[in-house]
């Protein structure tokens, strides 16, 4: 909160150079959930949707991004809030080779991460290139928590 008493119009959550592995994803998921609780007024459904969508983006990076590499690479999670637009944007990026279809085992166990993200977020995009993958998740009409007196 600024010195004038007006609420901050920008809030950020950043985890840069995290290991793209399941343990790291679980830890960041919990920290992101805590951050949401601290800074926003959200109903239980909204929080659940956001945490699950971000988890799915990280899970895909952890599972697919570095399949052909010798060791896990990095993933970066950045959440930023636009107070004027009341929108929350979360990006999950990696520098690996995600969504190379040759590496995906078909079957009933897999393949729901992207449909889930699209259903849970107001807007979801997945952009893959040789340089890596960037998932962008956006939620609108997100209210910041009221400042404590």
């Amino acid at each position, binding site marked *: 909160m600024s010195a004038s008493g007006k609420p901050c119009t920008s809030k950020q959550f950043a985890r840069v150079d995290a290991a793209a592995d399941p343990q790291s994803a679980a830890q960041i998921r919990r920290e992101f959930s805590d951050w949401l609780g601290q800074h926003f007024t959200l109903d239980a*459904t909204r929080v659940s949707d956001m945490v699950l969508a971000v988890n799915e983006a990280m899970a895909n990076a952890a599972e697919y991004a570095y399949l052909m590499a010798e060791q896990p690479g990095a993933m970066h999670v950045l959440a930023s809030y636009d107070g004027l637009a009341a929108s929350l944007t979360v990006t999950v990026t990696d520098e690996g080779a995600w969504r190379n279809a040759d590496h995906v085992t078909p079957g009933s*166990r897999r393949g729901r991460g992207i*449909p889930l993200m699209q259903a849970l977020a107001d807007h979801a995009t997945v952009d893959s290139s040789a340089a890596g993958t960037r998932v962008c998740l956006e939620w609108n009409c997100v209210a910041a928590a009221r400042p404590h007196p």
Partner: protein
Amino acid sequence: MFGDRWIREPVGIQWTGHSPVPVIGGIVATQPSASNCTIEQQRIGAIEVLSVAGVVDMLTASQLEDAIAAAGHHSPQGVIVDLGGVDFLASAGMGILVAARDELPSSVQLGIVADGPATSRPLKLVGIADLIGVYATLDQALAALTA
């Protein structure tokens, strides 16, 4: 004391994903504390009921897979996976449920108990509720599977 080994005993009453918790006659495993899943098995009539609590994600989904397979080996009429105590259900866990439907014998029905934003909502959003019966309470699931 138990290190990073799995000790599997055929009693099979409780699967615990803590780090580490000695369980006599059960399964002991070390798991990262960020993802904690407990599964308790009980038999109600001809139905195997698995009560799941905590987090079902990439780290813990295999526990659920093992528990469902073990329940199926008891030749029940049906298996109910009760997600009432689950705080978080990732697609990894959902995939296990769909795979279980395919892998359990056709004579064994599968039902899910789920209610709330973390469980029944995503199951419905990705269409799993169209493949496997999802019930709000255990009583409803039992009634459906024994009808």
